[in-house]
C-alpha cells in the first residue's frame, strides 16, 4: 500500500518537471506520441511536449533513446519505411500533421541530416533552389538570384562561394556542405527546422560556425535539434529535453536542467555516468 503511494507521488512529481517547462506560444505540440519499428515495442513511448516558437530546443539522450526517431516523425520521414507505426498527435500551429499531406508537412518542417547531403548532380546555386525545383515551382530569374544570395548569406556561405555558384555542391568542404544543406532547407521558409545531429560529422571549427549560425537563425525560425553533445545543447539551446529508453524523462529550460536536474537519470547522464 505504501509502495503505491510513493509511486503515485513520483508520477505526480514527474508531471511537475514537465509542467514547469511547458512554454507558452507553442508552435509544435506532441501529444502521446509513440513510435514503434516492430509491433509491440515502442522506440518512442508516450511523449508529450510543447515546443516554443523561435527558440532552440535540444533533444538529448544516449544512443538508441529514440531522439532521432521522434525528430523524424515530425516531418513524416518514417513513411518511407512501411513497418514503422506512429500513434498520438503532432500538432503544428494547431493542425495535426499526421493527418496532413506529407509533402505539405515537409515543406513546413525543413530537415537537416547528420551527414551533409547536397544533391551531387546540382550546382551550389541549384542546390539552394532545389526545394523549388523539386516542387515544380518556377521563380523569375531575379527572384532566384536574390533568394540564393539571402539564403547563402544567412548561413554565412555567400562570401565563400559567390564566385563559384555554378560549381557542384559536393566540391565544398564538409562544414560548407552542411551549411549549404541548411540554406537549402531555409530557402523554402519552413516554420520549423529539424536538425538530426547536424554537427556530428564535422570538425570543431565547422561545428562552431554552425552553432553561431543557429543562434542567429532562431530570430526567425524555430529550431529543434537532436544532439549527442551535451555541451552543445548547453551552449545553444533555450530548452532541453532528456530522453531515455524512448521516454521523455525531463523537459525544462536548458539553464534549469543543467544547473538543477530534477530526475536522477538526467543528473547521471549530464554527469557522464552513462550515455
Amino acid at each position, binding site marked *: 500500500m505504501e509502495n503505491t503511494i510513493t509511486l503515485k507521488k513520483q508520477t505526480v512529481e514527474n508531471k511537475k518537471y514537465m509542467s514547469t517547462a511547458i512554454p507558452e506560444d507553442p508552435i509544435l505540440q506532441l501529444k502521446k506520441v509513440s513510435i514503434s519499428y516492430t509491433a509491440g515495442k515502442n522506440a518512442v513511448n508516450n511523449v508529450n511536449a510543447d515546443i516554443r516558437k523561435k527558440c532552440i530546443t535540444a533533444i538529448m539522450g544516449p544512443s538508441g533513446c529514440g531522439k532521432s526517431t521522434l525528430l523524424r516523425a515530425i516531418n513524416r520521414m518514417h513513411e518511407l519505411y512501411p513497418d514503422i507505426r506512429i500513434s498520438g498527435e503532432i500538432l503544428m500551429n494547431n493542425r495535426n500533421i499526421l493527418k496532413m499531406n506529407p509533402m505539405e508537412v515537409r515543406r513546413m518542417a525543413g530537415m537537416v541530416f547528420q*551527414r551533409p547531403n547536397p544533391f551531387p548532380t546540382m550546382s551550389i546555386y541549384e542546390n539552394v533552389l532545389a526545394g523549388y525545383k*523539386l516542387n515544380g515551382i518556377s521563380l523569375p530569374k531575379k527572384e532566384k538570384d536574390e533568394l540564393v544570395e539571402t539564403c547563402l548569406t544567412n548561413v554565412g556561405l555567400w562570401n565563400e562561394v559567390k564566385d563559384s555558384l555554378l560549381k557542384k555542391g559536393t566540391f565544398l568542404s564538409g562544414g560548407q556542405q552542411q551549411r549549404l544543406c541548411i540554406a*537549402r532547407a531555409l530557402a523554402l521558409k519552413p516554420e520549423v527546422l529539424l536538425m538530426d545531429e547536424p554537427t556530428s560529422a564535422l570538425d570543431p571549427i565547422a561545428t562552431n560556425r554552425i552553432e553561431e549560425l543557429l543562434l542567429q537563425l532562431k530570430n526567425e525560425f524555430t529550431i529543434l535539434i537532436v544532439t549527442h553533445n551535451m555541451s552543445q545543447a548547453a551552449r545553444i539551446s533555450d530548452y532541453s529535453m532528456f530522453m531515455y529508453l524512448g521516454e521523455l524523462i525531463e523537459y525544462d529550460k536548458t539553464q534549469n536542467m543543467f544547473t538543477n536536474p530534477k530526475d536522477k537519470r538526467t543528473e547521471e547522464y549530464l554527469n557522464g555516468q552513462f550515455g
Partner: protein
Amino acid sequence: MKPMSSLTYRHFKDRLFFWTVCIFSALTAIPLILIIWEVVKKGYKQINLNFFTETAPSTLDAMLARNSGELIPGGIANGITGTLLMVVIASLLAIPTGILGGIYLSEKPKTWFSILIRFLTDLVQGSPSIVIGIIAYSWIVKPLGSYSALAGSIALSIMMLPLIIRSTEETLKMLPGSLKEAGLALGASYTRVILKVLLPSAFGGLFTGILLAISRVMGETAPLMLTALGSSAINWDILKPTSAVPLLIWEFYNDPNLIDMIWSSSLFLLLSILLLNIIAKQVARKWKIQ
C-alpha cells in the same frame, strides 16, 4: 607433434604457387591476343573508305578482283546501317522499359512481384539467343508475314532488357539513402525525387549499363537470322528485311570468294564494341557515385 617444415621450404611453396597463378593467367590472355592479332592482320587491308560507303559485293565481282590480285570491291554499308537502325530501335524500346523496371526493383526489393521479375530477367539473360530469335519470329515475323528490321529490333531489345533492368537496379541501390530522404524532406513528390534526384545521380551507372547492353547485342547473329534475315541493299524501312554486320559475316563465310571480307567485318565489329566498352569505362569513372 608434427615438426614444422623448414622456412626455406615454405618460402619455396609460396613462390611456386605465385608463379603457377601467373602462368595460368598469362595462358588465358594468349588466345585473346591471338584472336585480335589474327583479325587485325587479315582484316586491315580491306578497310578503306569504300568499306564504309558501299554495299556488300557480289560473288562475281569478288572473284574477278581476287583472280587479278586486287582488293575485293565494295563494303559493308548495308550491314552498318542495318545494325545502326536495329540497335537504335531496340534501344528506344529497351532503355525506358528497362530503367522503369530497374526503378521498381530498387524501390520495392522484397515484394513477390519484384522477386518474380528478378527471376525472369535472370532467365531471359541466360536463355540462348537463338531461342529469343525464334520467339521474335513467331511474334512478329509470322503475323506480319515478312522478315523485318522491326522483328530484329524486338529480338535485340528483349536481349537488352535484362541487362538494363539489372544495371539500373544495382546503380540505384548504390545511391545513399540520405539522397532520397533529402529530396523528400524538401516536400518534393516521390516522382520528382526519382526523376530529378535519383536518376541524374545514377546517370553514370545507367549510361554504362546501356552501353554495355548495346555492345552486347551489336554482335548478335542468331536472333537476327530468324528475324531481320539480311539484305543486299541499304534499307531504312523497318518493315523490310535488313542486313547487319554480324549477318554479313555469316554470309561472307558461306561464300568462298568473299572470305577476306569476314576478317575486315570482324575487325570493324570488334573495334566498335571495344570503343563502346572504353567509353562505358570512362563514363563510369567520371560519373562515379560519390
